[in-house]
């Protein structure tokens, strides 16, 4: 396993699956995403069960500001596209381009987080605090879990960028990049449902 000595040109064209470790990592990660599906599914179920119980707080249809959420959705979608570009760069062994796309991805992720925090602040202001009602608790838990995933993704990809600089693109680092990209898409997919189930359906009533 002398991965470090590989010149970039000698990397196999899909370096992420070149080693047993790499293949294990990707498979294991997919299984983990299966578990995450159920995790978010449960949070969604809890939210669906409780979403009409607003007590004294505002109702979803009064609360949500769709345009801002729509903007956040667009940002996250775009970041998913940039992360897929990073993987393409990985496959053609263009280290610089890959790092570039990854940086764009985490910047977009940060924008998304910023918007979300701003949004939460507004809601709290309007009397929709974490402890207001069952609706509010389940709302913040679901959306907050997603936000925490985004934040974790940003940190993780950031760390990977640093590793790429230090260690180069190798059969050890490639699976990590690939897996983080899948993670990022997964978060995006979850958001599609949050946007639909929490915000759009909330607005409809």
């Amino acid at each position, binding site marked *: 396993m002398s991965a470090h000595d590989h010149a970039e040109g000698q990397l196999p064209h899909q370096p992420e699956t070149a080693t047993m470790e790499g293949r294990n990592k990707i498979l294991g990660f*997919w299984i983990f995403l299966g578990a995450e599906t159920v995790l978010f599914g449960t949070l969604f179920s809890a939210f669906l*069960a409780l979403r009409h119980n607003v007590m004294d707080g505002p109702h979803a249809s009064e609360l949500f500001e769709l345009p801002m959420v*729509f903007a956040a959705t667009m940002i996250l979608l775009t970041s*998913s596209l940039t992360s897929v570009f990073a993987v393409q760069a990985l*496959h053609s062994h263009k280290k610089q381009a890959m790092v570039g796309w990854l940086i764009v991805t985490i910047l977009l992720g940060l924008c998304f987080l910023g918007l979300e925090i701003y949004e939460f602040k507004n809601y709290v202001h309007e009397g929709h605090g974490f402890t207001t009602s069952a609706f509010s608790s389940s709302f913040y838990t679901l959306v907050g879990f997603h936000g925490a995933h985004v934040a974790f993704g940003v940190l993780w990809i950031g760390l990977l960028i640093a590793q790429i600089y230090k260690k180069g693109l190798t059969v050890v680092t490639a699976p990590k990049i690939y897996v983080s990209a*899948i993670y990022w898409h997964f978060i995006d997919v979850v958001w599609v449902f949050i946007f639909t189930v929490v915000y759009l359906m909330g607005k409809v009533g």
Partner: protein
Amino acid sequence: MSSNHSATGEEAKRHRTEGPKKHIVAFVMSLALTIIAFAAVAAGEINTTFTYIIIVGMAILQVFVQMAFWMHMKDRGHVFPIIAILTGVFIVITMVIMATYWVWW
């Protein structure tokens, strides 16, 4: 497990030259689906059940698009990922039914 990483040179070439085109198409499709859903709600005139169907339908379509293209699930060697996700989805569906029907009966 036979792994297909030892692809022929030809395949490798095809892969390497594969441009960003299909991903941009997927992106545009995702955008369109989001906007349709958004518009259905913003319009606010359609009846509620119908709106629900539209927006949930758009979300499901979009997930297919993203999983297939961006998460490479349409590529070879993704049998177990597909099983993993589908099993998860199956359980989620039972739970959502539970949450919508049986928590408040």
